[in-house]
């Protein structure tokens, strides 16, 4: 998507599902990094996913954030399209969005019939 985005549209994707280039779920839009809020040309720079990204989200979020690691930062230019989900241009692994599922996939994958 173009680099200059309407901040209102960007804010409306908060809490939406992220889907990677392979069509796999890879987290939610937990927070957004916006620059130039004081000026007249605010711009969305990054999507923040997981961990510390919850810190800004309500009381519960602070608690959840303190129990988990750092957020993953996804630059806005990696966003392919915004519909009811936010589709990314690359597979989750290239954006480091697969850490949770891939780690557990190695363990679960060892069980017969998985």
């Amino acid at each position, binding site marked *: 998507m173009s680099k200059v985005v309407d901040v209102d549209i960007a804010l409306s994707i*908060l*809490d*939406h*599902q*992220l889907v990677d280039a392979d069509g*796999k*779920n*890879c*987290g*939610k839009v*937990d927070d957004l990094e916006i620059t130039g809020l004081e000026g007249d040309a605010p711009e969305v720079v990054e999507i923040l*996913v*997981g961990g510390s990204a*919850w810190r800004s*989200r*309500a*009381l*519960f*979020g602070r608690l*959840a954030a303190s129990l988990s690691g750092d957020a993953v930062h996804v630059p806005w230019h990696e966003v392919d399209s915004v519909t*009811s989900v936010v589709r990314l241009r690359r597979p989750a692994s290239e954006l480091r969005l697969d850490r*949770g*599922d*891939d780690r*557990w*996939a190695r*363990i*679960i*994958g060892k*069980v017969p*019939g*998985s």
Partner: protein
Amino acid sequence: MSLRKVLAVALGILSAIGGFVDIGDLVFNTQAGATVGFQLLWVVVIGVLGITVYSEMCGRVSAVAKRPVFDLVRERTGFGAGLATLVASEVVNLMTCAAEVGGVAITLQLLAGLPYRVLIPLGVLGLVLCAWVLPFEWLERTFGYLGLCLLVFAVAAIKLHPDWGQVAHGFVPGSHHGGSLLVYLYFAVGLLGAAMTPYEVYFYSSGAVEDGWGPKDLGLNKVTAILGYTLGGFLSFSLMIVAAVVFLPQGITPELLGTPPLVAADVLGQVGLLLALVGILFAVGGAAIETSFSGAYNLAQFFGWRWGKKERHAGAPRFTLAWLVMFALAMVIVMTGVDPVKLTEYSVIFSVVALPLTYLPILLIANDRAYMGGHVNGKFANVLGVVYLVIILVIAVAAIPLMILTNGGQG
């Protein structure tokens, strides 16, 4: 519609009937029947209509938006409210799952005669193996069809020749006479809670997405929700009638899960007993699987993980891990020796408290054109939806005070 399609729909409805009853219905319907007779039959009707209305909405949201309800709960209500809903629903899911696991162990004990504590892990192992190996449809159908053995209670109810005039009178709302009003109200709240348990709608909507429902399945959704739950309601009536005829005159409160099957044995002999036990085993076992999956669906959908039973287990690893952990925790809870019937009562009453958190977002989403386009709620669904929301709010406030005041329905 082709014959093949009619058959498929009929089979789906049958499994919905068999899957309707869980340990909450078993406990509250028999206890209510044993305590206040036929007087609360009308509440079952209200409960069944409520779950029908909201399941239909959930199924419609899944078919149109192609996304399950919990996925949209966070999107629609935000992180804070979504997380609060998640925590509440997970607590209720876990308590319910533990109660169902306890029910499985008790039923196995009655069938096999082995010690209860040995049968808890064995029962959980059996359920986990079924959930691991069987594909989604097989899982739903196997437990649904075998749960239909519970129809033995309908046969027993007829064979007991209840006073049908009095039974009919029980369908008249508000017909309270004799006994404590608070106890009557406590059981009314419990029956509504047991019929409208949150995990059922979460499971139904995720199942619809897993089955790949689209707008063409909206008719199927309506028929399955209406017929499956309505006919399932007849199982609830049967349990209550049986308890009212057999237990009430003798002053027996069925504190044990093994008491209702004895009635089937009394009326229909060994075969009746066996059918009743097999029916309870699969109805409760199926519900244990549904609650554990419901827990995993909600967690995965809140955090945006890969999820689904249709995926290979390693393809949705955190989802798989989540339902395994649900089973493990449920097993630990039951192994502490807590009485499964008491646990059921608590889980149903707490689920009533959490009901508004489940049903309000569903109503909001089903009315949101951004998700639903032309398939938003019609007037009929909205009037019923709002009426039920009011009922839910009232019983959510009343549930815990009533439980304390009546000492769990014992007066």
